[in-house]
């Protein structure tokens, strides 16, 4: 297992809320895919059923945090400053995937876009844009 894969596991393992959601992630080189297997406690609309919009927002937010942490080798989590989530399609009771793209990273702020999809990557279900405050690197 590479250093960054271990770092990623350690990072997600240390976030109780990520464990609560049942979220994990895989690395292909420096490209991370976050994975959220479907579970009944994630449902918002039980009639359809559909995954709760807040779950998707949280999942994509943690995806962004994890991507920044891997790229920067941070040991402390970045903090969200603002996020904007766009809901394109109903999230079905299936596994959801997400990838984050860091559009700009400076000394203090990172701008990150995240896309989440289910069966077809070309048809994303939700998008997130956010700014994150980087914490100083610990030695």
């Amino acid at each position, binding site marked *: 297992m590479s250093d960054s894969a271990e770092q990623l596991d350690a990072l997600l393992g240390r976030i*109780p809320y990520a464990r609560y959601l049942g979220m994990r992630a895989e690395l292909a080189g420096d490209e991370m895919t976050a994975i959220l297997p479907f579970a009944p406690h*994630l449902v*918002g609309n039980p*009639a359809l059923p559909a995954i709760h*919009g807040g779950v998707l927002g949280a999942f994509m937010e943690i995806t962004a945090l994890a991507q920044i942490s891997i790229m920067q080798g941070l040991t402390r989590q970045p903090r969200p400053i603002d996020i904007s989530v766009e809901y394109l399609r109903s999230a079905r009771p299936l596994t959801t995937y997400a990838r984050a793209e860091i559009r700009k990273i400076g000394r203090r702020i990172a701008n990150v876009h995240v896309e989440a999809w*289910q069966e077809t990557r070309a048809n994303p279900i939700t998008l997130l844009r956010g700014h994150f405050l980087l914490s100083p690197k610990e030695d």
Partner: protein
Amino acid sequence: MNNSVDIPAPSERGRFDWSPHSRALGFEFVSAEKAFATLKLPFRDDLVGDPDAGVIAGGAVTALLDHVCGHAVMTALDAMTSIATLDLRIDYMRAAEPGLGVYAEAHCYKVTRSIAFVRASAWDRDKSDPLATAQAAFMVNSDAGRRPGANLAQNASTEGPSS
């Protein structure tokens, strides 16, 4: 065709929560009146975001804000119907205090035939010192034309936004 169900009075609708995720997170009803709703997310160890800080995860606050906005829309509507978040913008002003639960209040200030517009804020100790604010738009009657269980179908239409 009208697929709405007219059950509780608007002020009572905020109490009515059929979302499994809301129950799983342990959201508590605080108050509701027409177009307003307040919920509380009690502190829980498994909802912590940064173990070094011991505070509730930003993501859990995101879910709370999304949900309380939905409640405010429900109390603003004349009849019960399905709604779904279209977009949600959140500003995080500060972290919650360690070990404290989070309150969130939402106001649905405008409803059109298709869309409801909502503002919300979240705080832990003092309402005048919010930790996050939100602005959201919801689709009204979002399940229109889709039967219960529609999302279970193999080739389900996924044209509507999520809830």
